[in-house]
């Protein structure tokens, strides 16, 4: 016997030609399908590009960017939204340095997008004299935030504190404070467009999460009253269309409340969305709770953990991780469901599209361009959400069984 020789793995045949052969032309019918598909892609692609760049009239989009972005929000007060954008960019920059990973990708995308908007050769004059400046400042501040991340401030808890404080500040900025002349209250009937869509979705998403978790836990409670209440709530709400719930909150709710209590109609829509989403959230979370093996509860009990600790430390972290895809799917649906707010008279993004079409007689038949633009904006946000979810799953999958 000779000395043991190391046997080298044969090199896997490289080369694009081989790849083509293996994946596209392996059999005669695959080759045929490949050719047909290429032809189809060519003709459709050519048509789309020719239409988009030479035939389509993007004027309604170009001249209405302000409407799409913020609706009827007074132009002289747009600086508030600019300030919010700049603040968010700054915090994104800081977070990118602190947490890295997916957040860095988002920060980069945001900075690039806002920078590109600032350079866009469209008419941004409705955004007020400073509109373009705010947009241009955003990426710069993102870089500033990133650099600040290298100093001792670059810690997770400071970034988190910054976000929490800025959320409060953003709401105050948007809404204004009665009695301050330079920060007048702005009626919510003037809020619209992407701003309103975004707000409705955010409040729905953030609000439905705790309620959904509580309802899911309540549905498994050993106390019959709690369990019955949760089942009744979940099954009732899931049996009713969102439109009905929005109507209920915006028209019927004020009738039941005493005269002195007037709930703003945007807030009413937000409450309705949260109410509706909580029930679906509860069912998603329940799916995760059911997947936790009994042994986990027994091990926690045997160690002397009480019921609350078992739920908070052992059960929920595992259950929620299991249902991230379902939860994000629900958030995406919720984001698109915000369009239904038009039914209670809110001018969210899609409604702005319709208003824009009717605002100019020359634009009446340009619905293709306008709705494609609206669809693209929705796609951008929902795709970001599903991208974040995939990254989150991978990041949290470390300890999975």
């Amino acid at each position: 016997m000779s000395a043991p020789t190391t046997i080298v793995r044969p090199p896997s045949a490289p080369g694009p030609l081989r790849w083509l052969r293996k994946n596209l032309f392996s059999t005669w019918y695959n080759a045929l399908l490949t050719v047909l598909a290429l032809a189809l892609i060519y003709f459709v692609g050519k048509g789309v590009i020719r239409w988009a760049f030479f035939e389509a009239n993007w004027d309604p989009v170009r001249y209405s960017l302000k409407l799409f972005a913020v609706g009827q929000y007074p132009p002289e007060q747009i600086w508030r939204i600019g300030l919010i954008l700049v603040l968010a960019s700054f915090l994104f920059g800081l977070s990118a340095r602190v947490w890295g990973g997916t957040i860095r990708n988002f920060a980069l995308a945001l900075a690039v997008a806002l920078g590109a908007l600032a350079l866009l050769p469209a008419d941004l004059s409705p955004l007020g004299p400073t509109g373009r400046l705010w947009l241009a400042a955003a990426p710069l501040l993102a870089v500033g935030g990133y650099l600040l991340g290298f100093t001792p401030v670059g810690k997770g808890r400071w970034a988190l504190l910054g976000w929490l404080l800025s959320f409060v500040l953003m709401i105050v900025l948007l809404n204004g404070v009665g009695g301050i002349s330079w920060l007048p209250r702005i009626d919510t009937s003037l809020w619209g467009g992407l701003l309103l869509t975004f707000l409705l979705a955010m409040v729905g998403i953030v609000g439905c999460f705790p309620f959904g978790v509580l309802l899911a836990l309540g549905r498994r409670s050993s106390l019959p009253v709690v369990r019955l209440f949760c089942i009744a709530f979940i099954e009732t709400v899931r049996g009713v269309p969102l439109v009905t719930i929005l109507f209920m909150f915006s028209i019927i709710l004020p009738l039941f409340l005493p005269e002195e209590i007037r709930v703003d109609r945007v807030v009413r829509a937000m409450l309705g969305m949260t109410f509706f989403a909580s029930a679906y959230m509860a069912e998603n979370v329940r799916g995760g709770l059911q997947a936790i093996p009994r042994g986990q509860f027994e091990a926690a009990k045997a160690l002397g953990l009480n019921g609350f600790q078992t739920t908070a430390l052992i059960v929920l972290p595992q259950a929620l991780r299991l249902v991230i895809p379902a939860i994000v799917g629900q958030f995406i649906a919720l984001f698109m469901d915000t369009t239904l707010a038009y039914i209670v008279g809110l001018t969210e993004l899609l409604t702005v599209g319709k208003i824009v079409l009717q605002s100019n007689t020359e634009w009446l038949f340009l619905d293709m361009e306008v709705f494609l633009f609206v669809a693209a904006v929705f796609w951008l946000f929902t795709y970001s959400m599903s991208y974040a979810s995939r990254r989150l799953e991978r990041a949290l999958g470390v300890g999975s069984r």
Partner: protein
Amino acid sequence: MSENSQPSSDEIIICRDVHKWFDDYHVLRGVTLTVRRQEVVVICGPSGSGKSTFIRTINRLEEHQRGQIIVDGIELTHDIRNIEAIRSEVGMVFQQFNLFPHLTVLQNITLAPIWVRKWPKSKAEEIALQLLERVGIPEQAHKYPAQLSGGQQQRVAIARALAMQPKIMLFDEPTSALDPEMIKEVLDVMRELAHSGMTMIVVTHEMGFAREVANRIAFFDEGNIVEINTPQEFFAHPKEERTRLFLSQILTH
């Protein structure tokens, strides 16, 4: 407490006439067993005989419906404070390990000391690392359970139970889910634990371990202890026909 429940301080577990039903099925039929401090009792018997159910009644993972169980002077009743007090004195190791998959090995071990014992994190981690050293896997502290072999996971589970500094350890078939080459490493840890003076009740089919480590062996069948004796007597002169039959099956395969 009733008049005759005043135990001698040496008797740490007292079970008197313990009965349990799963619906109509009578699983435990009047089990009576007393375990002294530092004693190791091995329980064996055919599957379905109720041996696992019995040790699970000792920390109230299963509720008994008749009879009396007194652990370290505290009687197990519906009083949740008694149950939690006993659970933090009684460690348990399961057949399926039941580690928490979303936590690292170190977090698995320090969780209960931090949240139940209210120890500062530094103290809990120090003790956890000592325990990992003791069960022979100090280098795995920052891995997740799924990254360990079955034998290593079970040793982590033992360390997790020991971190609460229990007075009693219950083992519910700790090696039954392991590949043969990993059984020894877990039994070695249990052997060392027994020699260190821990009170242990072990449900197992490892007769070599029982012969070597146990003070007494109890044979369980049809919901009750059929025979209980020292290892020498138990293996050499089993009194009951059922014990003999069981031993002949388990020792000659």
